[in-house]
């Protein structure tokens, strides 16, 4: 049996409300909330970045897996906001968590699906027998240009998954990826913020890739939507995942637990992985989970998980996603937010 042996998630405590961003730009907050089903988003603290978020999530994953960090043979961090253009994020993480140095480390990038990519490769290496454990992480302090539609959603958070073959808490039954050259969202070198092609990011990008990945995954597994207790899809806003889930045949009830975006925002590479973590926090042994990520450019990775009896033993060993989402929040106004996100440029 191959799959997740330990998982963890992390969200910063800071939040900004849609109203505060809308007020800054003279936008209609109610229309945005209605249209995007977004209410507030997480904001990374001044001393937080993709690496610190990854460390926090991976620490929780280690606590749940209860394994010797030295046994981890690979560490992959997927993000579109790696703090360094040249220097791997994972090297700092292994040093902080006592992993390695006999370990394979890489940074992944594929817009919002870099996290599921890290999970897929980590799982594949363990399944191939190359190592006992591998760690796959999706984390981001995602960026939206001031005044752009993305500023209402781009948030911070992440989730980490240790893949292994013993004491598996969620077995991976099937996977399926779907990828094409679709330029819906990108950031070129030397640009501060990503650019996107408006509604082109919807139908021909998000919907096409998730739908095709999801449909093929169902066909491959011979399962139907009603076989699943939970479903989670990449969450660029509140509306898209509900639409694509419905199109694939899933109900609102199946998607409810993983649908954390209205109060979290889009954690990019951490989006569907944090949704998965929220599901694992409550899932019962035997439950099946359907997950499809999406990354612009564009591609989707689909997974089918089945939760095992082990889940009951590990879920209370580390912080849960919903607790981090609902409690101890510190609200920022736009000025503080601009400072936190380093949008205020100072002289040297």
């Amino acid at each position, binding site marked *: 049996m191959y799959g997740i042996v330990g998982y963890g998630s992390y969200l910063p405590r800071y939040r900004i409300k849609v109203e505060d961003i809308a007020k800054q730009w003279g936008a209609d907050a109610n229309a945005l909330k209605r249209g995007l089903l977004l209410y507030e988003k997480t904001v990374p603290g001044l001393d937080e970045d993709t690496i610190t978020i990854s460390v926090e999530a991976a620490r929780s994953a280690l606590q749940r897996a209860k394994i010797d960090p030295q046994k981890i043979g690979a560490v992959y961090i997927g993000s579109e906001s790696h703090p360094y253009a040249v220097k791997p994020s994972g090297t700092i993480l292994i040093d902080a968590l006592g992993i390695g140095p006999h370990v394979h480390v890489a940074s992944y990038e594929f817009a919002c699906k870099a996290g599921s990519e890290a999970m897929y490769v980590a799982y594949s290496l363990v399944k191939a027998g190359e190592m006992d454990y591998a760690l796959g992480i999706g984390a981001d302090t995602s960026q939206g240009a001031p005044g752009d539609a993305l500023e209402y959603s781009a948030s911070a958070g992440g989730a980490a998954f240790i893949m292994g073959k013993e004491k598996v808490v969620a077995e991976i039954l099937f996977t399926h990826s779907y990828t094409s050259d679709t330029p819906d969202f990108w950031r070129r070198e030397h640009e501060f913020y990503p650019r996107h092609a408006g509604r082109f990011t919807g*139908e021909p990008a998000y919907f096409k890739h998730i739908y095709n990945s999801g449909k093929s995954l169902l066909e491959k597994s011979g399962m139907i939507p009603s076989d699943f207790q939970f479903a989670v899809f990449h969450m660029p806003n509140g509306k898209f995942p509900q639409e694509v889930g419905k199109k694939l045949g899933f109900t609102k009830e199946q998607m409810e637990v993983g649908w954390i975006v209205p109060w979290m925002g889009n954690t990019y590479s951490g989006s569907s992985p944090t949704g998965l973590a929220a599901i694992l926090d409550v899932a019962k042994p035997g439950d099946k989970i359907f997950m499809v990520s999406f990354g612009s450019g564009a591609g989707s990775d689909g997974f089918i998980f089945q939760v095992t009896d082990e889940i009951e033993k590990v879920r209370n060993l580390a912080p849960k996603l919903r607790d981090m989402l609902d409690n101890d929040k510190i609200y920022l106004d736009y000025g503080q937010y601009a400072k936190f996100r380093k949008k205020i440029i100072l002289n040297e």
Partner: protein
Amino acid sequence: MRDVAVVGVGITKFGELWKDSFRDIFVEASLKAIENSGVDHIDSMYIGTMSSGLFVGQEHVGAVMADYLGVAPIPATRVESACASGGAAFRSAFFEVASGHSDIVLAGGVEKMTDGADVTEALATAADQEYEVYHGITFPGLYAMIARSYMHDYKTTREQLAAVAVKNHKNGSMNPNAQFRSPITLEQVMKSTMVANPLRLLDCSPVSDGGAAVILASLDVAKKLKRPFIKIKASSQSSDTIALHSRESLTSLKCVSVAAEKVFKQAKLKPKDISFAEVHDCFTIAEVVVTEDLGFFEKGKGGEAAEKGMTAIDGKIPINTSGGLKSKGHPVGATGIAQIIECYEQLTGQSGERQVKKAKYGLAQNMGGSGASCIIHILEAV
């Protein structure tokens, strides 16, 4: 000048045509029109497109389209009059056939607006760059000023403006090529996002990709083709000040009333003789003002007319049976030609659910900018 007929039409779906390029869209519409008409060649063509340079970086549109349609070396000319580019292309083709210079001419219109350009900025180039755009105004803002002034002078209500959008969406729901085929309610319009007070999102025509083409031919050619055709009864064009603030009135579009007077005189008809009209409803207020300036309603009564259903398909004068720019979509250069196509389908009895009964004369009014240019045609069933 000899009589000229419209002998065939072709149109693409309007909307976000992600898979089709600027040239693909034009070629699709043109091939449909050529096939629909049954002609074995075209002598020349005119293409209306407002701002292909800003939208997709392509100028020299006549040559591009002749090349990709496979009709080179025939003469092919791009015609531009902002949102009235399609109407202007049609008028140019009409003159070429009427003069006897050519027998069969294609008039098309096309716009590809969703390829990533700043659409509002590109469209604003149809206003006065030095005295309007420089100060930050865009088209929703200009039409909002017309609406405010109009509502002040004539006590027209917000609901009456919304009635225009509701009616056009209802018509568009019956048009298979329309961008938005969903009926909307008065409440939805009133609650939609504010764009430029008092105009809300559902008062505004959308950003669209789309193409339309028609084949014009001499009456002799038309008769030989043995397919449904209509006659071009009259054609007029006018211009006005480019800037809204230079006009005598904000609540009347002089370009429309001037062109209307000319076209009715030429056709020897009166507004009451018209069976239905396609008008340039880039914003709901535009339809209200235009229907008055065309002479269908008294000044100040256009909103009330829409509210009372007088402009519905079964009303006194059906307006925008196609769904108009609001619901059918507004790929700028294609709009004027799409209006002619609606007239062709209505006058040849091919409009299905939205067919106007006993349609004899159709009027198509195409307008550029905030009313700095206007082109009107009257088409006749044969």
